[in-house]
């Protein structure tokens, strides 16, 4: 497999104030191919966000190895890490995290402030094009607080993809939306990543969202294991009958 992301025996622990150590991730092995869509499900506190942060270079493992496109990322300077993060990853957050006081266009253009050359200079135009692609061409100059939840998440989607990242990391992308709106947002998200060939890693509580991925993983007390297709189908069906 031509792996974009390779995690080998990745562990993450933190020292607590009482002197004990809390293990958040334990021996995580994960390979994600270019253009693949994987989903990670798990209870709150199971380490999902920590895993996503490590993948997105926002956090570093305590032990283990992480290869990005076959190259190790540990040992890089903070500056190089930040640049690599900006060039490689796009983030979608559960709470959207749109920048207040900026229009939809300014929000989508903001990652391009850290791009170089043509990307920086054409940032507003690129941002407008991205917003049109997510169906918000009529809301270019609208402030986030004037947008509905679904619209805000679509702005966040446009922002996460505006630098054409190779990997999109979505942390509970539908967590703050109702079922129908969440489904619509996922449709847009999947359409965009499919068209761009972007690798997508989704963290979710929602099994129906997880079922849309090519592969599903469960994170339980910091241990990652792959879920078989039958189990996902059963879980999804059970949820739909409720």
């Amino acid at each position, binding site marked *: 497999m031509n792996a974009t992301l390779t995690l080998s025996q990745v562990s993450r622990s933190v020292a607590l104030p009482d002197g004990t150590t809390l293990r958040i991730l334990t021996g995580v092995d994960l390979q994600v191919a270019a253009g693949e869509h994987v989903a990670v499900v798990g209870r709150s506190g199971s380490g999902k966000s920590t895993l996503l942060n490590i993948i997105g270079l926002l956090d570093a493992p305590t032990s283990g190895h992480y290869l990005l496109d076959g190259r190790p990322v540990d040992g890089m300077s903070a500056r190089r890490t*930040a640049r690599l993060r900006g060039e490689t990853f796009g983030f979608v957050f559960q709470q959207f995290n749109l*920048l207040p006081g900026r229009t939809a266009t*300014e929000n989508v253009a903001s990652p391009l402030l850290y791009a170089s050359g043509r990307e920086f*200079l054409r940032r507003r135009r690129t941002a407008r094009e991205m917003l049109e692609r997510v169906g918000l061409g009529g809301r270019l100059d609208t402030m986030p607080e004037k947008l509905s939840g679904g619209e805000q998440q679509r702005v966040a989607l446009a922002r996460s993809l505006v630098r054409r990242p190779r990997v999109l990391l979505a942390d509970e992308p539908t967590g703050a939306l109702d079922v129908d709106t969440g489904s619509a947002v996922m449709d847009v998200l999947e359409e965009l990543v499919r068209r761009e060939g972007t690798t997508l890693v989704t963290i979710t509580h929602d099994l129906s969202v997880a079922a849309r991925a090519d592969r599903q993983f469960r994170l339980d007390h910091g241990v990652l294991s792959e879920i078989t297709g039958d189990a996902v189908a059963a879980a999804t069906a059970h949820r739909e009958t409720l």
Partner: protein
Amino acid sequence: MGRWLLGPVAAVTEAWGEVRVHRTRVVLSLVGVFLAVFAMTTITAAGNMGRQLMVESTERTSGRSATLQVSAYPNGAPTLQGTERASQVLREAAERHEVAWWGFVSQGSGQVTVRFPTGAQVVPFSYVDPSYGTMHRAVTDQGRFLTAADDQAFSPRLVVNRAFADLLGGFDERTPTTVVLGGDRPVTATVVGVMEVPYSDGTTPGAYALNSAAQSWGLVDTAMSGPPALELWVPDADAEAFTAALQSEVQAALPGYSVSAYRSDAGEELRVVDLVLAYGVRGVGVFALVLGGIGVLNVGLVTVRQRIREIGVRRSFGATGGRVFFAVLLESVAATFVAGVLAVALSVALLSYAPELLASLLPAGAPLQDVPPFPVSAAVEGLVAATAVGALAGVVPATVAVRAKVIDAIRY
């Protein structure tokens, strides 16, 4: 655009965007800095104007900087020959040193009977040379001061104070105002101007006349009054050397006289004013700036904590620690710089368009002859200080922003 240029451009663009979005907070936090720079610049300008007022006021009494006075008093009773000899020695001293501006002056020493319409009254007269007007920056309320042309006039010319003019029933430049002087040998004098007379309280009459007129028309008893004092207007730098030379030369030429050469203008007093301006006014300005800076720092710290999630989101976009630090710092610096520019602009506007307002706040006196220029140095100092305060006040919030844990920031 090269990468080396793009980075700073992008950082400035980002910082400006932050200032724009947070303009209300920025404006509120900068009120202190704005007022401090405005106060620094305006008070310095007002101080300069006050200094100039004081300079001009003291120059009217004591002469311009540097005015030297040389007096020679006989140790015994004055005689006509002695007085003439002493005057000759003083004149030769001034001519020997090729001083451009000099003259004899007897401030308030003459006692002249003046026949006012209400009755005769003895009035103190000051006798001066025509150079006095320039050397003492004489400004008349009405009419003009005495000139060299008055030497040739067919009657004594007088410049009188307001009390004198009032006793004559007022002064009108368009019609000659005359008054009879003297007792046994009366002479009709012409009043050519009205101005304040030094050594007069303003309620009793006083007057100026030329030394030549006093001699020609017998207004002064030369034998009894002794020689007048010699005044010389010399460059500041040469004042000390001139004083020493005149003291020794005149004393050597006039045995039996007590010679006193000294600097009579307000140089020393002005140095005190300059010190007050330099340290007092600017000290207050710097103190105000520090207070303004603490305000900026305080608001900056609070705001950074409120914006921690936003900073985390920017880090997820690929913002480096340096870029976050620079953006927060630049926001503070740019904002304080703009506040400084606005403060200086307001100060310039105030001083340019309303100097009368400022002058009215200062002690009353004759109008300024030489309005001091706008204190560019104070404006530059204010701008630099404001920017420095912005930088210092921005460092702490910028450091907090960089140290914020991205993960916590995003989940905040």
